[in-house]
């Protein structure tokens, strides 16, 4: 009876772990999309408007907004990676792409694969 209880608790924990990892990856996806979108708005719209039309408020607004979005992405990425199960190459790719236009969108494929690879009880090294 006691053994059954422990086994049952283990299975419930594994399911919760998987759900927690999926939720964490989902949060990183959202942070990645926001970071990528604000970077595109900054360098694709606000910067050209400043240099071609002399309109500076766009850069003054989008600069800090993208800065905060990048900090939020970096924090969520560190939290996700510290949870375990990431190779060094995956970590390097995750952070390097954040500096490139459209890079945050390219990371979505990696995050989808990480979510698909989740198995019960297999959340860390």
């Amino acid at each position, binding site marked *: 009876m006691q053994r059954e209880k422990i086994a049952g608790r283990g299975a419930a*924990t594994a399911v919760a*772990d998987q759900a*927690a*990892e999926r939720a*964490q990856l989902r949060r990183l996806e959202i942070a990645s999309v926001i970071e990528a979108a604000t970077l595109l708005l900054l360098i694709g719209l606000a910067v050209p408007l400043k240099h071609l039309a002399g309109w500076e408020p766009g850069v003054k607004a989008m600069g800090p907004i993208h800065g905060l979005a990048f*900090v939020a992405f*970096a*924090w*969520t990425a*560190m*939290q*996700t*990676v*510290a*949870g*375990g199960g990431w190779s060094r190459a995956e970590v390097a790719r995750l952070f390097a792409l954040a500096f490139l236009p459209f890079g945050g969108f390219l990371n979505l494929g990696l995050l989808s694969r990480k979510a698909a690879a989740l198995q019960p*009880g297999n*959340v*860390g*090294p």
Partner: protein
Amino acid sequence: MSVAALYPWLKALHVAAAIAFAGGLLALSVFLAAAAAIPGSVPGAARVMRRWDRAVTTPAMLLVWAFGLALALSGHWFGETWLQAKLAIVVVLSGLHGVQSGYLRRLAGGAAVPSWRPAPFILLGILAIAVLAVAKP
């Protein structure tokens, strides 16, 4: 209410959030050091710590950032060296919290975490922030 009248209120809320954040950060660093030193995993205790981290420490960190940026904007402090140095330390402490939070998720899942003892650096960071914010050297 003017920005000048709001300033002390923002400052009080910023300090309260900073105390809650620093307390949570230190407590979690000690818990992780203990978890790494004790043989076997401690998922039950880690889940309790994780609830506290998600309900108090992480929101406190977000409030530190929100009130701190509002204070810096209203006081036009961004050009000051002391604030730039303080901001760099806050970025490092926030990053440490992100890593600790990830380790805590790992522990709560029943996996082990590597040896982790950042408490002395966190204390130094807190001391440096207090000096920079109060003395404004």
